[in-house]
């Protein structure tokens, strides 16, 4: 960091005079290019394996076994996708389940988290210390798997219902504490005071004054929550026996854990059964196709959140 600053002072200074007319808030072309280069390369490194996943999913299975991963496979094939659509009418259902829990769960989560976080962000809330603490405490301490399971299945009777996929993860202490900081630093007390003077109640202030200026923060925790729901498979593993309620990600993870299980359990009763099971598992191309099918929709949903934290980034460009 320090280094960068020093370099800038050397290269930047001569430019300053020459380009006095230039908007000072723009980076110099050199640094602009460097930014693009650094970030571009990094994001390329991130996209690269995913691109590979897509290509493998379209590769012929035999070619894959023979040649290994290749960016330009010798034989292309749609088999993986036709296999998935032919063998599982589950897929469309699971899309539906995942979409439902993601949307409902995220909205519910945003509501509960933002209310809670707002309350504990106010310095005049007498119990803020206590409520911050009980939220934080749950990040570290838990009762373990079995007690949680008992609460969800035997106390709340949520087993084999869609709520078993939504409620256990609808509040996150992490999101609350992040959001609390957002409220603390991004919402000036003056705004709230002015609202109060106008006679608005706490809820009114929250909905009409605070929420609108907290969109970046809300988008962030909303995104985290949505991703959490989209990627969740563990609750389904525990609480769902009914195939009608299986979310997308659990289909994918099931395939992966089955493969791991078979490969690691050479003891699986007798060699013939083991290879019979192994044979019934989908090929690697199919697995990759599942990854693609499970990821592409959420990537398309991503810009919806993104516009709140990338748009309007043209910070100093707003000139009045």
């Amino acid at each position: 960091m320090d280094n960068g600053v020093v370099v800038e002072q050397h290269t930047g200074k001569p430019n300053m005079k020459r380009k006095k007319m230039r908007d000072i808030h723009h980076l110099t072309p050199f640094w602009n290019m460097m930014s693009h280069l650094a970030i571009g390369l990094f994001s390329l490194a991130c996209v690269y394996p995913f691109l590979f996943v897509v290509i493998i999913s379209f590769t012929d299975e035999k070619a894959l076994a023979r040649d290994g991963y290749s960016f330009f496979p010798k034989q292309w094939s749609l088999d993986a996708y036709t296999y998935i659509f032919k063998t599982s009418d589950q897929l469309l259902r699971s899309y539906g389940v995942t979409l439902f829990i993601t949307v409902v769960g995220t909205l519910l989560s945003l509501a509960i988290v933002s209310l809670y976080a707002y309350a504990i962000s106010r310095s005049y809330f007498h119990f803020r210390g206590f409520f911050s603490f009980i939220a934080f405490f749950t990040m570290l301490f838990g009762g373990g798997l079995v007690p949680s399971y008992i609460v969800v299945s035997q106390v709340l009777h949520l087993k084999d219902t869609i709520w078993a996929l939504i409620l256990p993860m609808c509040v996150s202490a992490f999101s609350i504490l992040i959001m609390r900081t957002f409220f603390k630093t991004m919402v000036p007390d003056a705004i709230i005071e002015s609202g109060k003077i106008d006679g608005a109640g706490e809820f009114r202030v929250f909905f009409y004054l605070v929420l609108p200026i907290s969109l970046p923060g809300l988008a962030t925790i909303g995104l985290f929550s949505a991703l959490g729901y989209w990627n969740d498979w563990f609750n389904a593993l525990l609480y769902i026996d009914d195939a009608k309620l299986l979310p997308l990600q659990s289909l994918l993870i099931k395939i992966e854990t089955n493969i791991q299980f078979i490969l690691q359990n050479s003891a699986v009763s007798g060699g013939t059964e083991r290879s019979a099971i192994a044979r019934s598992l989908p090929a690697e191309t199919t697995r990759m196709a599942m990854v693609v099918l499970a990821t592409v929709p959420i990537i398309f949903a991503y810009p919806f959140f993104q516009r709140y934290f990338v748009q309007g980034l043209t910070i100093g460009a707003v000139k009045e």
Partner: protein
Amino acid sequence: MKKSLLLVLSFVMLAAFTLAGCSSSKDSKSSEGTADTGKGTETQVQQEKKEDPVTLIWYTIGGPQKDQDKVMTEVNKYLVDKINTKIDLKVIDWGDYSQKMQVIAASGEPFDIAFTSSWAFNYVESARKGYFYELDQLLEESGKGIKEELNPAFLEGSKVNGHNYAIPTNKELPAQAVWRFNKNLVDKYKLDITKATTLESLEPMLKTVKENEPDVYPIPSNIGPFLPFDFALEGIPVGVALNSTDLKMVNIWDSPEAKQVFSTMRKYYQAGYLPPDVATKQGNEFEKTGKWLVDKQHTVPFADVSWSESMQYPIISTPIHEPLVFNWSVTGSMQAISAKTKHPKQAMEFLNLLNTDKFLRNLVNNGIEGVHYKKLSEGIYEPIPDSGYSMPAFTLGNMFLLDKLKNDPADKWEQYKKFNDSAKNAPLLGFQFDPTNVMTEIANVKNAVDEFGPSLNTGSVDPDKILPKAIEKLKAQGIDKIIEEAQKQVDAWRASK
């Protein structure tokens, strides 16, 4: 801070009380239930027979089936007629089964029957924890058919502390390790595989193949070379020699046999007979590419045929040792009754029927005739591809009742029986090690075993240098205490026999 902590503590206390309230109300109910099962079973069942059929919740392992509901409707129709019982079948995926069942069982959630085995939802461990109903008396009362059908070694070998807690599946009883060869390469280089008995005897074949096919690794994966010991506990190198008469527990890695095996593997590894990364976990792509010569598997009658079918090129095998009945082979696939069941008698009646009734067994396994399979002739069937129902045969019950496929030999099940009768008992058959007193040592030793095991087994490291280090680490982690405990238990077991 301090105040908050105090408040949280009282919060937790409150939660504890609520929880106590919730489950104690349940407790009273369920304890009544168990009291019933003790004495009142007979009369209760008599009454129920005239009333509504009992529904049993049955968890088993496998891939969930699309047409499960359809088949279960048929099954239930049949069962209501026969024993006035219905089944609510829940099939859990291979990889999820252990974890899910452990949570279900530990939380006390009701179920009646569950699949258990030495490799998924561990049988001995679960029986010892008290998850399962003790079956000795039930077997006498309602499980006579099972006793007649099963080779007695199954029930004898699966006893935990002298009692049976699950019904083993009637299938292959012993385990027999074989060298499994890719016949294409065997024929191409005219290898004489009848000479393949020991690990050392493979050498000339490996050499021939490597010299002529440099891009083939003749041994394609970590084969887990055969060690002539009967292990006290899966995955921990403590056990007795297979030919032992005095049942002396030893540190298996510290034996001359292990040293010999590791050195041979090292020689093979250095000669390039194994892939350089072999100690790292990998898939089984070699089965698809056919670029391999030999690995180690456990066989059953006609295994070569089914291996060849599943790999789509010919496979041939030679035995490494005679068929031996191990604890883990006896408990390879079982169905247990839950300790919390309210209907133990019906559950046993159902299991009895499943293991003796040809129609039911085939229905549960292959689905409905005409929908999921075609009947070619008496006892021969052909599955309809992608029909939405087909269960893994070896997990459910008596395999010898199953119809055969068109290509199956006519004497398939007779050969199985012959195979079972030919088996000898391994020295520890019927002895189940109780790890309670050495839990800490087992957890620590297991980490050391995983650290050194694969690289020694594959020859990736020099045993002269690494093996002493590994043994030293095992000792540091407390393997001697495990050996001592195992010795104590096995001596007591022997004295009681």
